[in-house]
C-alpha cells in the first residue's frame, strides 16, 4: 500500500502528462500481480465497493471528532476525503498497511457491522500519506488527474504493445487483469474476449487539408455525409438491454433509458447520439442537458428525447463485418434497418455530389442554412479500422466564424506555462460596456506568447489571485465553430470551440465587434 500511496501522491501533484506516464509505467513494471491489477482497476475507475462508501467514512470520523470541529474543518479543506485523512486524531505506532490486494479483500468481505471498526483501525495504523490514499481508495473519488486512457497508455508504452490492441480487448477483461499483464509481459498470448458483446474501439477521422488532400483525392472513391453535432456512440444490440458506449468506451446506457429500451435487433452499430423529436436534431446545448447527468429525470426525457443517427455497422447480427469495405457495410446497414424498423434510430443520409466543388457548395449551404458542422468523407473501399488511420475517413469542417473581441482578463496557465499569462477571457461591446463572450488558451508560438505575457504584465489594471484584469485595449481575432444563446453568460452568448486565431496589435479596441454583431452567428445555428 505504501508504494501505491506514493504513486497516487505523485500522480495527484505532478502536472506533467509524461511524468504521470513514467510514474505509472514504473509502478506497473515493478509491482507483482495481483497488486498491480487492482491498482489498474483503481486508476481506471473499475473498482467499486458495495459497503465502503463516503457516508461510512464520515460516520467513522464523526464518532471520534467533535462534529462542530469537523464541520469547520471540512469547510476549510473543501474535500471530504482529505478532511478525513487530515483530521483523524489517533496515531498508533505506524505499521505498514496491508497490501492493496489484502485491503480490497478486507473491504469486500468485512460485514457492514464490522466495517467501521476495520476502517478506524486502518486509519490509526497509517502514516499520513497512506491515510490519504486509503481514504481516496475507500471513497472512490481519486481526483488525481488520471483517466482510464492515460493508465492504458502507460501499459502500452511499458510493454511496447499498440494501445489499439489493448483497447480492443479491454472491455472484455476483469480485474485483477492477470491475463492482460501476462500478455504485456510477453509470457502469454493476447487474451481472447467475447467480441460481439463488448465495446469495440471506434474508427476516427482526420481533418482534411483543402489545399493538399482535395487535389489528389478522387471524388468518385468517396461517399459524403453531414458531420452531426452530437456525441459519437456505439450501440450493442442483442439479448437483453442494449449497451450504449461513449467513444472512450464508457457505458452511458443508464443516462439514456428512453433510447436503450426502444431499440431492436442484433448487431453493433456506430453513430451519433442526438436529441430531438421526429429525428430533427436539436442543438448540442440541448444534448448537453442530458449528458451532464448520470440519471435522466422524467422532465429531461420528455423535453430532450434521445436518438441515434447510425452511420456504420461493425457486427451484422453476430457477424464481424469490420473487414468488409465501407460500401458493403453500408448496404448491410440499410438492409438491417429494413428488417428492424426503429423509432429511436435512423440512418445518416448520403450526400450526392459529382466533384469537390459541388461538395464545397453543399458544405457551405449546410452550415449557413442548417448549422451543420461540416461534412464527413469516407473512402468507399475502406474497412473499419479502429483508431485514426490515415487516408480513409476525413472531416471537412465548416469554415470557422471569426469575430474581433477585446482582451479583458488573463490568467496564468498550467504546467510548463504556469509562469505565463496564457489563458484569456475576451468580450465584445454592449453599448459602452464590454461583456465577456468566451475564454480560450493561447495556441501560438512561444515568441508570441512571451510578447503577449509582457503586454499583460504591463497593462494590468487589477489582480485577483492568478487572474489579471487588463486595460481594454488589445484586440484578438477569435475563431469559433458556432454560437449559442446562453442564460449562463452575462452576454447571453456562448461560443463553441473558441480559439484565438490572431492577435490584432494594429486594431483599436473601439473597432471590435458588438453584441449585436454576434446575433448573426446565433441565429444561423
Amino acid at each position, binding site marked *: 500500500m505504501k508504494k501505491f500511496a506514493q504513486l497516487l*501522491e505523485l500522480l495527484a501533484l505532478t502536472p506533467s502528462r509524461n511524468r504521470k506516464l513514467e510514474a505509472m509505467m514504473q509502478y506497473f513494471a515493478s509491482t507483482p500481480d495481483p497488486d498491480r491489477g487492482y491498482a489498474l482497476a483503481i486508476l481506471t475507475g473499475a473498482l467499486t465497493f458495495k459497503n465502503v462508501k463516503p457516508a461510512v467514512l464520515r460516520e467513522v470520523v464523526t464518532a471520534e471528532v*467533535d462534529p462542530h470541529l469537523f464541520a*469547520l474543518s471540512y469547510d476549510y479543506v473543501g474535500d471530504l476525503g482529505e478532511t478525513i485523512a*487530515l483530521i483523524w486524531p489517533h496515531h498508533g505506532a505506524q505499521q505498514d498497511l496491508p497490501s492493496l490486494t489484502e485491503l480490497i479483500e478486507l473491504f469486500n468481505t468485512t460485514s457492514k457491522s464490522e466495517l467501521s471498526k476495520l476502517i478506524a483501525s486502518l486509519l490509526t495504523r497509517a502514516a499520513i500519506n497512506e491515510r490519504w490514499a486509503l481514504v481516496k481508495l475507500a471513497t472512490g473519488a481519486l481526483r488525481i488527474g488520471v483517466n482510464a486512457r492515460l493508465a492504458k497508455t502507460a501499459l502500452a508504452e511499458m510493454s511496447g504493445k499498440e494501445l489499439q490492441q489493448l483497447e480492443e480487448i479491454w472491455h472484455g477483461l476483469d480485474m485483477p487483469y492477470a491475463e492482460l499483464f501476462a500478455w504485456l509481459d510477453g509470457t502469454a498470448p493476447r487474451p481472447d474476449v467475447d467480441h460481439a458483446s463488448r465495446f469495440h474501439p471506434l474508427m476516427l477521422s482526420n481533418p482534411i487539408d483543402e489545399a493538399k488532400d482535395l487535389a489528389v483525392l478522387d471524388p468518385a472513391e468517396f461517399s459524403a455525409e453531414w458531420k452531426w453535432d452530437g456525441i459519437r456512440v456505439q450501440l450493442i444490440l442483442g439479448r437483453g438491454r442494449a449497451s450504449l458506449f461513449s467513444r472512450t468506451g464508457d457505458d452511458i446506457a443508464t443516462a439514456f433509458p428512453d433510447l436503450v429500451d426502444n431499440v431492436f435487433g442484433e448487431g453493433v452499430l456506430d453513430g451519433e447520439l442526438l436529441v430531438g423529436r421526429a429525428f430533427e436534431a436539436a442543438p448540442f446545448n440541448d444534448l448537453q442537458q442530458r449528458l451532464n447527468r448520470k440519471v435522466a429525470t422524467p422532465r429531461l426525457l420528455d423535453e430532450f428525447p434521445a436518438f441515434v443517427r447510425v452511420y456504420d455497422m461493425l457486427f451484422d447480427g453476430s457477424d464481424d463485418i469490420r473487414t468488409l469495405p465501407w460500401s458493403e457495410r453500408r448496404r448491410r446497414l440499410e438492409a438491417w434497418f429494413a428488417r428492424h424498423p426503429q423509432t429511436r434510430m435512423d440512418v445518416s443520409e448520403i450526400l450526392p455530389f459529382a466533384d469537390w466543388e459541388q461538395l464545397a457548395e453543399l458544405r457551405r449551404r449546410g452550415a449557413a442554412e442548417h448549422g451543420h458542422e461540416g461534412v464527413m468523407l469516407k473512402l468507399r473501399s475502406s474497412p473499419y479500422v479502429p483508431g485514426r488511420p490515415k487516408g480513409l475517413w476525413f472531416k471537412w469542417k465548416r469554415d470557422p466564424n471569426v469575430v474581433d473581441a477585446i482582451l479583458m482578463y488573463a490568467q496564468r496557465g498550467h504546467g510548463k506555462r504556469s509562469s505565463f499569462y496564457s489563458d484569456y477571457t475576451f468580450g465584445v461591446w454592449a453599448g459602452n460596456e464590454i461583456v465577456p463572450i468566451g475564454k480560450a488558451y493561447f495556441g501560438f508560438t512561444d515568441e508570441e506568447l512571451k510578447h503577449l505575457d509582457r503586454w499583460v504584465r504591463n497593462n494590468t489594471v487589477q489582480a485577483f489571485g492568478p487572474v489579471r484584469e487588463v486595460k481594454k485595449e488589445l484586440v484578438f481575432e477569435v475563431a469559433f465553430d458556432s454560437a449559442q444563446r446562453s442564460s449562463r453568460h452575462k452576454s447571453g452568448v456562448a461560443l463553441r470551440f473558441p480559439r484565438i486565431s490572431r492577435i490584432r496589435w494594429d486594431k483599436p479596441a473601439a473597432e471590435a465587434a458588438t453584441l449585436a454583431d454576434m446575433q448573426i452567428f446565433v441565429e444561423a445555428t
Partner: protein
Amino acid sequence: MIGTMEPFLTRDLRIAPNGLYIDPPQPQARAIITHGHADHARSGHGAVLATPDTIAIMQTRYGADAAGRWEPLPYGERRDVDGVTISLHPAGHILGSAQVLLEHRGQRIVVTGDYKRLEDRTAQPFELVRCDLLVTEATFGLPVFQHPRPADEIARLLRSIAAFPERAHVIGCYALGKAQRVISLLRQSGYDAPIYLHGAMIRLCQLYAERGIALGELRPSLDVPKAELAGQVVIAPPSAIKDRWSRRLPDPVLAVASGWMSVKQRARQSGVELPLVISDHADWNELRDTITGTGAATVWVTHGREDALVYWSQQQGLAAEPLRIEAYEDSELEGE
C-alpha cells in the same frame, strides 16, 4: 485572577498602565516586538523593546533608524516599565522570537506572538510560561492541521532529488525563518552540497550565519548557468517560484515549505508539485497543549482560524474569545 479583575491589557494589545503596544500595526511611541516578520515588526516606532536577535533582524530589514530607540531585552531578564514587569521568553517560531510575559499586581498575562514547539535549530526552543490570561495565535487552529515530523518531509525532498537528478528543486520559503530552517534541516539530514539562494534570501541567511546558526555553503543562484542547477536545491520566495524568475531553472520541481501544504488538493491547485509540510507555527495539538499547559483561565485567540480554538477552549470550561486584529496577514502562501 481574571474574572474577578479586569485584565490590564486591552484587546488591541495595549498595556494599560504604561501605554506600550505589542506588535502594533501603526507607529507608536513605544512598542514591544515579538519577532521580525513584517506583519508583527513594522518600522517607525519611537522605541522598540525586543530580543537582541529581533532587533538585529529589524535593523537588517529596515535599517538602523527604523526605530527612534532600540531597547534590547535578553530572554528571561525582567524590566519594570511603570509598574508592569516585562520579560521575554523563547517562542520557538524563528530566531529571536519571543512570548511576552507581563506581570502587574499579581496578574500574569502571556502574549505568545507566533510560536511552535517542534525542534528547530535555527530558533531558541519554546518555553512554557504559566499565566492567568493567554493571548495565543491560531494560524493553524483547526484539527486538520497535525504537522508531520520535519525530518520525514525532508526525506521526501531528498527522495525527489534522487528521482529527478536532471531537474532543479526550487523550494518556496519565506525569506526570514523558513528559509534558514529548511537549509538547517537539509544539513541535519546529511545534505552537504551547496544550496543556491534567490537574491531575496541572501541578507537574512548571512545574518543567521553571523549569529551562529550553521547553514553550510550557500551560493547566489543569479547568473549560475541553467545546466549547473540540475540536481541542485534553490531556495526562493514563494512568489518567485511560479513567476518569470523560475524560467532560468532547468525544468524545476516546484516545492513549497509551509504548514498550508498539508492540504494536497490546495497544493495541486496552486501548482505545487512537492508540498513540504514544514511549519513555523504550532499545529492544533501544540495549540491545545499550550493552552492547557499555561494554566490560563482566560484565552484570547488571534491571528488565524480563531473559531475552532475558541470553541474548543470553551468546551474545556475556559473563558475564551476571538481577537480580530486586522493588521495580521493571512494570505495562503505569503503570510509569515
